[in-house]
């Protein structure tokens, strides 16, 4: 009895010591992970997540202070990629629901003030002073900064219109577990 207790205690202590030493000696610098996370994020530094830019968000993600679903412009794909990188199970169903958005200028309201044009982090808005602005769709990340600064509510985020090129089949709905209707 005594022998068993002592031997197990000693064994535990030794193993604990080894683990402790290993944790210090083989400590991985967090920066590598942060850099990889920055690569996954959109990089438009829009700040919608509440952190200072994508690097700030990556830091928070690496330290576990933020959920993988933090990035609205990145959408579902980024959330899945982040979850895979961090090795966490994420409920991305909430993210999936938000449809991809894109900024659109309503020309009849635009006064050509260039404010949106100045805040756009990806230079996706084209135009000049006193001229109607327009959005370059391929560059817009739907960060919403332009919407905030527009004095006439001319710039609005709209769902990305479905085109023949981008359309694809929905996921089949099969009732394999036929639940009794309540």
């Amino acid at each position, binding site marked *: 009895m005594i022998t068993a207790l002592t031997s197990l205690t000693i064994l535990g202590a030794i193993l604990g010591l080894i683990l402790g030493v290993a944790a210090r000696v083989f400590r991985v610098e967090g920066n590598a992970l942060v850099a990889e996370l920055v690569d996954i994020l959109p990089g438009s530094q829009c700040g919608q997540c509440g952190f200072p830019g994508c690097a700030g968000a990556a830091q928070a993600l690496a330290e576990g202070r933020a959920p993988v679903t933090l990035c609205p412009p990145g959408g579902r794909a980024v959330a899945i990629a982040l979850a895979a990188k961090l090795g966490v199970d994420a409920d991305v169903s909430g993210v999936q629901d938000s449809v991809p958005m894109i900024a659109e200028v309503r020309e009849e309201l635009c006064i050509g003030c260039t404010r949106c044009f100045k805040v756009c982090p990806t230079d996706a808005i084209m135009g000049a002073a006193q001229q109607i602005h327009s959005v370059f769709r391929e560059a817009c990340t739907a960060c919403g900064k332009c919407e905030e600064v527009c004095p006439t509510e001319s710039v609005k985020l709209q769902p990305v219109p479905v085109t023949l090129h981008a359309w694809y089949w*929905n996921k089949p*709905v099969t009732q394999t577990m036929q*639940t*009794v209707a309540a």
Partner: protein
Amino acid sequence: MNAIAHSPHAHAPISVNRVMALVMLALTPATLFGFWLYGWPAINVWVMSLLAALLGEALVLRLQQRAVRPVLMDGSGLLTAWLLALSLPPWAPWWIAVLGSLFAVIISKQLYGGLGQNPFNPAMAARVMLLISFPMEMTTWVAPAPLGSIHAPGWLEGLAVTFTGSQVDGMASASLLGHVKTEFTRGIGLEQALSGYYAPLDALLGSRAGSLGETAALFLLAGGLFLMFKRIITWHAPVAMLIGVVVPALIFSAVSPAHYAGPLYHLLSGGLMLGAFFIITDPVTSPNTATGQFIFGLGCGLLTWIIRTWGGYPEGVAFAVMLMNAATPIIDHYVKPRIYGRNRKGVSMSIEPLKKES
């Protein structure tokens, strides 16, 4: 408006219900023959098995708040119970049948997620459970007493056998495999043990002690061929299983006939025919590819022969099937069809530059 339908806009005239119904149809001759051979108690056991499966499955579905009708209507629970009933001693008490059926549909099937999700064949899992838990009841056999013969129990007597456990004198008997195993343990050689006990013709025609599914080897064979003709099953697994038993039996009986029984003895005894054509062809628990099914069948056959020859139990089909069920995911992992334009490893075939015509 309905969602737009994806192609194909045609379907082969096949459904799960139809598959199950055809398998049951294929089992019918063997079952009727068994009923005739062992009389009312056998019918009782069969009815109790099926009833228990239906009620048990309905209960579980209720608990899961799932629709009951569509699942019961697919016929898979009934088929499981039917196969189990064919592997039980015909004069088994009612609670053996009920317990086995409930175990099969609830524990081995629905708890895993229902049809298609169970790793082990439910009927064989139930049989193994019963064999381990109630060896007495599961190995008490009777000699056949065809309906209408002097020894056959009447309807009331049959009810008494099944439900009160009353025994009819002079009927108890041992199955062929069990008898040989017992004689071996007493140090009696094979030839002597078999003499007067085993006649291949009798075994073929079924007039001997055994379970319903054991005695009707010919009818089961016919049922299996019918399913192959209907393209419900393929030849790979059954043929492989028979090979797996016959080849070692041939070799060993040739080397030492006193210790090892010959292929015919193995083929016609125990649950081999039932196993080969109806158990290991269960789609859920067998591999996906033809090659995989062949390997699976071969393994089932070999294991059956090994357990019969050297194992502690006289019969090994159920154990062999369960062991190979466990190996099915591994077989599926390693045996995959080759994709068009790729080699076995999935790498694209090489593109050789064409020589210019001279």
